[in-house]
């Protein structure tokens, strides 16, 4: 039985194909269209999923859309009505697309896919809950889903057992932890729905000076983690911005304009909202534990990408195990929706061993064979060296040790926002200059942004304060005390971005200013080649940790095809690119004097 899950029309459109309960393929539309957070109908992602499964739309048994459009429309109308006439501008802007397309979702899906079968619409947070619980390794677990907003729900918790997810309680719009975080993302000058993780990365440079102000003026937080926002300070219900004048007065100025210099105040604000978020999530987790009595917790929803909070839940909440959906945002809704139908709607049996999850390392996207890559390279006259399988780990380990920055393109693309060692840029974590160098010259992004380490699973606890695996880079853990470098008196006096100049541990490139790291543990079964590479680096250079950052540049989606990878490689200062068995070195790229093909040379394939 083939079930296609899809999510679109908000942000991060995606598709996922589930066959007889197994996820066959899943991908975000942005990877194909090269439009970051593409919200359009995910036709390319769908085509890929069908192709991977070797079927056409006529072979689909169900198509599942990840939320209920009519209830969402009701929420939008009701919200506008309650604020009218304020918000008329935003209303006029939003309505045509709703009336023309969004509420006719079933017809739209049928038409786009030429599909006559059944189309099902679970609720937004049911899809999130399903994406959190069904692929998890647990037979029974509590779940917590937190995001901006679905239909009405912004937060939910409940219990997943066998083949069912059961929502026990919800928080409703406009009271939303996701939107509160986004409001501060907007206020600190980052882009809503994409800049949240930048603000999270900025937070450790600041002090929580505004935490009490947020808790006293902006929200009424209860002991159980439920809360109400003071809507006098927000504009997102009816306006075109997230915050209003009153909010600006409260925090002493207008929002930072995007691109302008970050100040200590921005950092303090970021740290304040980060701590509030952690506080709320911890209280929620505590409450969910009390209410459900389960020892396992599953997380999903955009806020579950806040890995600093996740790390604290793991360390400080009573739950023994935590599993987080790697595509925790709306893209993962496509996967959750498809699994929801297979398990909950069709009541198929689900058995898990309590150890291994069903996410397959989240390597659920397209793969390109060596023959395809070779054809691309030769067609475009790109010089390369062909490496034997067994030579790849050593060759790349040596290059990394020689301070080269490597584009690493292997096997199936990851599903979710993190690159997990198949579409990654790699570097030496031991280098004190690598963080700034890779940020400014490779990723072209803000110098404060931290890089994540990949560490071989069995050595993780030698380097980080963590006693379990973190395969999806969704947990933050402190670097081991003994690896940290003590700050001199002068260094301790530094504040703000000046902290970047200090070397904080023996793996400085992946140690954030608060000594934390958002780590990925690499398992030899889930990703053998990547594991071998890091193991070889450890063998030769006594360090089982390397930098792993997503293979893209600022503002672009992670690369999908060899053409995307090559273009990204050539448009940055990366030194080498390894695609399958083919090594391309920047210094070997010859100057083209003749036969420059201006029209076809680098068209995407």
């Amino acid at each position, binding site marked *: 039985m083939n079930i296609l899950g899809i999510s679109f029309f908000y942000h991060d459109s995606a598709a996922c194909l589930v066959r007889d309960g197994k996820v066959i393929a899943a991908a975000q539309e942005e990877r194909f269209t090269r439009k970051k957070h593409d919200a359009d109908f995910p036709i390319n992602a769908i085509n890929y999923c069908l192709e991977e499964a070797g079927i056409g739309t006529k072979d689909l048994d169900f198509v599942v859309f990840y939320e209920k459009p009519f209830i969402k429309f009701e929420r939008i109308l009701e919200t506008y009505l309650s604020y009218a006439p304020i918000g008329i501008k935003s209303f006029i802007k939003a309505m045509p697309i709703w009336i023309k397309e969004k509420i006719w979702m079933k017809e739209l899906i049928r038409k786009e896919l030429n599909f006559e079968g059944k189309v099902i619409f679970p609720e937004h947070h049911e899809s999130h809950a399903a994406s959190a619980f069904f692929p998890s390794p647990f037979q029974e677990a509590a779940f917590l889903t937190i995001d901006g907003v679905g239909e009405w729900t912004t937060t939910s918790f409940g219990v997943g057992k066998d083949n069912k997810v059961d929502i026990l309680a919800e928080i409703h719009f406009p009271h939303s932890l996701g939107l509160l975080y986004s409001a501060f993302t907007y206020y600190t000058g980052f882009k809503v729905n994409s800049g949240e993780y930048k603000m999270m990365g900025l937070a450790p440079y600041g002090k929580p000076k505004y935490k009490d102000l947020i808790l006293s003026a902006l929200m009424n937080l209860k002991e159980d983690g439920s809360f109400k926002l003071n809507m006098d300070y927000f504009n997102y219900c009816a306006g075109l911005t997230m915050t209003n004048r009153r909010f600006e007065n409260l925090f002493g100025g207008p929002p930072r*304009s995007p*691109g*302008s210099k970050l100040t200590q105040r921005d950092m303090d604000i970021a740290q304040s909202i980060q701590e509030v978020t952690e506080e709320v999530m911890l209280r929620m987790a505590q409450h969910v534990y009390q209410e459900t009595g389960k020892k396992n917790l599953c997380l999903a929803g955009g806020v579950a990408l806040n890995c600093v909070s996740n790390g604290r839940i793991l360390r400080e909440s009573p739950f023994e195990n935590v599993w987080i959906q790697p595509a925790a945002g709306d893209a993962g809704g496509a996967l959750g929706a498809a699994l929801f139908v297979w398990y909950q709607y069709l009541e198929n049996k689900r058995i898990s061993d309590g150890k291994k999850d069903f996410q397959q390392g989240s390597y659920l996207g397209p793969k390109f064979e060596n023959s395809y890559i070779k054809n691309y390279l030769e067609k475009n006259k790109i010089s390369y060296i062909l490496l034997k399988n067994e030579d790849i780990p050593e060759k790349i380990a040596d290059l990394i040790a020689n301070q080269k920055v490597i584009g690493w393109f292997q096997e199936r693309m990851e599903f979710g926002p993190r690159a997990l060692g198949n579409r990654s840029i790699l570097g030496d974590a031991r280098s004190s200059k690598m963080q700034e160098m890779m940020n*400014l*010259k490779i*990723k*072209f*992004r*803000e*110098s404060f942004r931290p890089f994540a380490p990949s560490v071989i699973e069995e050595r993780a606890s030698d380097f980080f304060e963590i006693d379990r695996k973190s395969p999806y880079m969704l947990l933050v853990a402190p670097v081991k005390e003994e690896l940290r470098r003590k700050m001199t008196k002068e260094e301790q006096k530094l504040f703000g971005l000046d902290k970047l100049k200090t070397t904080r541990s023996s793996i400085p490139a992946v140690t954030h200013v608060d000594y934390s790291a958002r780590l990925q543990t690499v398992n030899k079964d889930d990703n053998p080649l990547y594991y071998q590479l890091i193991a070889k680096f450890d063998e030769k250079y006594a360090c089982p940790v390397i930098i792993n950052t997503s293979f893209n*540049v*600022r*503002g672009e989606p992670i690369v999908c095809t060899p053409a995307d990878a090559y273009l990204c490689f*050539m*448009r*940055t*200062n990366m030194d080498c690119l390894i695609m399958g068995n083919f090594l391309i070195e*920047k210094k070997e*790229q*010859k*100057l*083209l*004097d003749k036969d*420059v*093909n*201006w*029209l076809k*040379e*680098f068209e995407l394939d």
Partner: protein
Amino acid sequence: MLKHMIEHLDIFVCPACGGDLQIADDEIKCLKCLNCYQVEDEVPLLFWPHENGIVQKKDVTNMVKKFYEKTPFPNYEEFENVGGLIQKAQTGIFARLLNEQVPFNIRVLEVGCGTGQLSNFLGVAHRIVFGTDMCLNSLKLGQEFKKRNGLERVGFYQMNLFRPIFREESFPLVICNGVLHHTSAPFSGFQSISRLVKKGGYILIGLYNRYGRITTDIRRSIFKISSDRFKFLDSRLRDKNIGELKKLTWFMDQYKNPHESGHTIREVLGWFEQIGFDFVNGIPKLKAFETFSENERLFKSNPEGNWLDHFLVQTHLLFTGSKEGGFFLMIGRKKL
């Protein structure tokens, strides 16, 4: 220090006599006429005046050079790293399309690069870019940005476009955007730089349009008689989102430039024909009612249009062009 120049020394010539150059101890010397050229802040000073080294009092080149030495344009006020530069470039279609469509691994020459923003942007990707200008202060800003951001494939050189420092047919792409109209002899300037284009290579020329510039000319006259009291007549100068320094450089560049000329589409097509270039594309498009798309193939051949098309396109520029300085851009391909 002169790594970029040393790596590509094969294409350099002496601006005075066309002889081969030699670099020793960071000094550049001509092997033929034995002229020596200094280097300042890692920028080779290869500027050579028009006629036998004699600078005349009313020489336009000298006047414009002095003007830009005082007012480098455009400035780097708002961003300090490559990310910011990319972000800025991506907001305009032209730079983005260029970056997407100019092949990698080729040599690109920008004549009149000013502070080198486009050169630096194009050199982020794997291209060898030569940014030249006669204004040293502008070049120094470009060089400083390049150095700070490790853009090793970009090199900045002081050059008089009438006295090129490169061998003929050295570049598959020569860009000369917003420069020729500040020279005393735009056609001669075009002739001079067109020699540097390889056969089958492209030249990209940006000029003030005679008609598109009319509103700017009117504003300039008003500013002149009112002692710059009515600056609000220019939309950029009243835009609150633009910084003061940027406003000042815009104002100086647009209204206080000591010399500028206006040109027409027909005129540039004539240049192309005379020198041996085929017209390829234009911004705006030369056929009336054809629009320049966001995914335009810059180097794909387009129709030249007829006199009526040109009349309509330039009339349209009269009403819309002044915001961007009444500019038009044409791409030509050197005949094989």
